[in-house]
């Protein structure tokens, strides 16, 4: 035991407790929001372009798919149901991003059959997108494929919902290190314009 550590301890012990707990209780609150709260916001009607005569209110959003040359993410406009809350709107957008298979020559970047367990928003506005484990088991790997999968979702949410600055992807309700061994998923990711092509 040295004088230095004694002095340190006196200075920081109290601060440690206060700072530590406040941070963690905040985190707990974000993460404790049960996905079930928004679990039924989706539905089958989200797919594709609005049918004439359909009386559900819709908004136009941009979804992201691999470009014809496979080198970038290209935005395409689709319509999704207008939702009552930002969290439900985010959910409708992610549902559409996951389910939509675009017209040739574009390609979807999320493997088929991946389902959305829930979307919720933190107090600071970040979205948590909870995917089922199929996204991991069916993913073909490769850092580029992984970047395309993740940023199609992150961009779809952040571009269409300016109040959401960043998106964190969870798998089976858990925070994960990565989806396929490359992209850091421990933190919310902000929109990636560099991958977007015209």
């Amino acid at each position: 035991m040295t004088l230095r550590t004694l002095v340190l301890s006196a200075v920081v012990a109290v601060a440690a407790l206060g700072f530590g707990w406040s941070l963690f209780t905040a985190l707990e609150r974000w993460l404790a929001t049960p996905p079930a709260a928004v679990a039924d916001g989706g539905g089958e009607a989200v797919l594709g372009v609005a049918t004439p005569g359909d009386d559900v209110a819709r908004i136009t959003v941009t979804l992201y798919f691999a470009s014809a040359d496979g080198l970038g993410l290209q935005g395409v406009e689709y319509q999704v149901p207008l939702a009552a809350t930002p969290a439900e709107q985010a959910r409708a957008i992610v549902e559409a991003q996951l389910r939509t298979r675009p017209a040739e020559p574009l390609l979807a970047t999320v493997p088929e059959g991946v389902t959305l367990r829930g979307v919720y928003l933190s107090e600071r506005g970040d979205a948590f997108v909870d995917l089922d484990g199929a996204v991991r088991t069916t993913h073909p790997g490769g850092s580029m494929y992984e970047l395309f999968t993740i940023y199609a979702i992150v961009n779809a949410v952040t571009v269409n919902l300016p109040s959401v600055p960043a998106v964190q992807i969870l798998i089976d309700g858990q925070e994960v290190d990565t989806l396929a061994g490359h992209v850091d998923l421990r933190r919310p990711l902000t929109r990636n314009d560099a991958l977007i092509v015209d």
Partner: protein
Amino acid sequence: MLLALTVMLAVTAHPAPASQAPGAAALTILTRDGQRTLPLTTLANRDYVTIDELAGLFRLTAREDDLAGGMTLTYAGQTIVLTADQPVVSVAGRLVSLPAPPRRQGARWLVPVEFLPQALGLIYPERLDLRRASRLLVLGDLRVPRVVTRIQAGTTGAQVTFEITPTTTAEVTAGSGGLTVRFDADAIDLSVPTLPAQTFLLAVTAGDTPTTVRLATGPRFSTHRVTTVPADASSSRLVIELLPAITTTEPDTPAAPSASLPAPATPPLLAPAPATGVRTIVIDPGHGGEELGAQGPRGTLEKTVTLGVARRLRTLIETRLGLRVLLTRDDDRTLGLDERAALANNNRADLFISIHANAAVRAAVRGAEVYYLSLDRASREAQRIAEGPATRLPALGGGTRSIDLILWEAAQARHLEQSSVLAGLVEQALRGRVEMSPHAVQQAPFRVLVGANMPAVLVEIGYLSNGEQETALASASYQDQIAQALYDAVARFRDHVERGSTPTPGGGAPEPR
């Protein structure tokens, strides 16, 4: 010494850690006063210790706060705050990331074993040096060099190389049935690859004491020769050649030299590196074990290709530059991303190169790419927190362990400029030898780069999802071209660092996207 006060074990000749029975997993703790063990619980390939046992051994006061779902550990007035399922702990007011969150199992709390150096190490008065691979924790100033064994066996002889870090002297004595190597240290942290017994060498095993290694020699062994080669300022290689009885006229030829081993008899190839600059390089073959990575249409696996290239690159750098090269894995094993960066950090590597092979949504995509880390909002915040007044505290450990003093997340942030220089050199070197992707240099939030406390890049050497590239990636000639290019880039980066020469990016500056 704290542990002196605890119950002493009746240790007469405590076994070297490497000879520990593999049964029940335990962390061996070496102290001035002997050896203790801490039981390990392995969950999802990660070693955990219980808070109760930690507290008992290190004299910590553990207090659970049910209301907040947290746990506080206090040592000499300094407090660590843990929260179940949160991979961040507060250590005396500073936030430190753990590779995995603490877990609760009923009344038991488990923390990943990295908690010891990364969190407890910040408030504990003695150095806590964790050797994760050998499940060893060295307390205080004990001299426990890491001794990595490499064996090259041939029909005309065999060669055993011990890489010793930090360097220490060793004495080789011949006895009945073999050789004994005695290291000048308190104990050694020994790793030995498995080898089939053959005519010169039957086995390499930990000796009878904590500081010895025994080579059991085979029927054709007659004599041996010892060479010591400084690998760099902090490590050295002890090479023992096992030779047959001299019946031919070539006794001076090193036994079975191979391209994969630096020949000890040719010092010009192994000129000691200068005291500053690039001395240690960590090469990280992507994926491994259960994590296959990407897969080509004909089944070529990313994990196999990356290991092949990494080994070729190691050979080139070791033999031509004489630098110390460590692979994060040298076989087909599952290895966490944090462990890869940690290996580089713990060995004070000057350069980190992660090697991967890519897959794209469309099969037509081809070419090599180089990535360095992009800072997202969260990592920029982490960097601010790390540099902010809340954590500007006196440097514990005398400033030699800066990685512990900042958020793990921010480690790479301080090296981004050099990482981008390195990325540019790699791109330039690759372009001369293999096809490049249209986006040759990019930035991305790649997890393996985040915690690397040195210039670091991730190289995607081609697309396995493209049939032609898959064939190339599996071939020795393509792997050699990649290794040669990366070697060229390392050599140029070293010149850049050591001579301050400004590299000239060919074909314009790299264009991050």
